[in-house]
């Protein structure tokens, strides 16, 4: 909890500085996390386009992973990815044994549906 008192903060919940939503870490809301299998990604950027939380990390035109401090785990990226579950797979934050195996397979590019 932030310790700023009611006399110090702007009234009415107004946010008087622009562009500070990045300071609000929403990753803790996530129940499912996307796991990225880089090897089979075709870098089409569909996930980047659709992610509602701007959490697809891109470097030099290549999808490189997720910003897990802000990703809320909605699974839209996994759903719109044309290569689908082979590249992005949603797994429970509290992963079961079979899911751990699944994560490893996705990450190693061995996952087949």
């Amino acid at each position, binding site marked *: 909890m932030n310790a700023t008192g*009611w006399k110090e903060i702007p009234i009415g919940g*107004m946010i008087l500085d622009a562009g500070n939503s990045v300071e609000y870490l929403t990753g803790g809301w996530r129940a499912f996390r996307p796991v990225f299998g880089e090897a089979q990604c075709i870098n089409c950027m569909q996930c980047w386009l659709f992610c509602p939380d701007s959490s697809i990390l891109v470097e030099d035109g290549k999808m490189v992973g997720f910003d897990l401090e802000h990703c809320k785990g909605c699974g839209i990226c996994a759903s719109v990815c044309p290569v689908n579950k082979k590249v992005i797979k949603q797994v429970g934050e509290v992963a079961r044994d079979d899911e751990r195996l699944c994560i490893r397979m996705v990450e190693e590019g061995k996952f087949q549906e």
Partner: protein
Amino acid sequence: MSKFEALAGNEAVATAMRQINPDVVAAYPITPQTSTVQKFADFVADGLVDTEFVTVESEHSAMSACVGASAAGARVMTATSANGLALMWEIVYIAASNRCPIVMSLVNRALSAPINIHCDHSDVMGIRDSGWIIIFSEDGQEAYDNLIQAVRIAEHPDVLLPVAVCQDGFITSHGMERVEIYDDEDVKAFVGTYEPKWPLLDIEHPKTYGPLDFYDYYYEHKRQQVEAMENAQQVVLDVAAEFKEKFGREYGLFEKYRLDDAEVAVVVLNSTAGTAKVVVDQLRDEGLKVGLLKPRLFRPFPAQELAQALSHLKAVAVMDRSISFGAMGNAGPLYLELAAALATHGVHIPIADYVYGLGGRDILPHEIEQVYRDALQIAATGRVEQMVTYLSVRE
């Protein structure tokens, strides 16, 4: 130079709106408020105001448009009644919580069901905890004067809360009376120009209104609203003092009528106070020491000042034009709050409630006289036999 005009209460309010010349008015017609908005629409069509008049499809949209316009930095007004206010309800809270200094003319009417278009105070009492400042008006003159003052109260930097100015549906909203209309320029000078502190249209300084606000800050924002309410009482008095200096009419937190040497008093809102004054005079002629207190400011509720003003009495009779269903004794809100105020401030005098006039049922002088005679009886015995009386309801 001011001039006297024969105006219905709604026309007086529309005239105040013309003189205030707000940037935006968003409203939806509903009886008995309609003639306010209708008359104001004439002013817009005739080019007498610069107002952007938004004709919305419902009251929910009306209040939403008001919130948006106010956040943008506009001086904003609206008007409604009864079920219109009920439909606004969600946004009424948002207007107060977003600290939008919107001014609303509220023409009091009974809430449905059964459907009824006539006066009672069930509509305004529904928003008494919403964070709006609430002011009552006995007649068209007061509705006009209060609306002008409301702009200054709402926009005061220590307040920044919306204000509802009430008057009684049909009884004063459609009753023609002699209203002193001040000079346009004087009213404009009195309300001044609104200088919004955080206008959304200031695109050099982008900002956000109404974001998500969880357990870590929401509570602090509610605490700020408490502070604004506490500040409002002094601002109401300061604005009234300035108003008196400029226009000559005196306003305060409440009006006392032959109260200071009275032994019993009636406390009643809006137009019924006018009828009660006649009864007070008649009973005074009989030598009975009766008086009247007419609250003007209901939110914030000036509990200490009210308790002080009534502390010398032997009995108080509150008249309520609405019921707080299921509350203690199924009494009215004014009684409940005043009884709590007296008890809290150590004023231990008998106090009884008289619910009256629901759905526009006439309240006649002889009925108010009965309330006074009851109060005199209570004063004589020191005992309230019946906490709540539903005056003139047929058994």
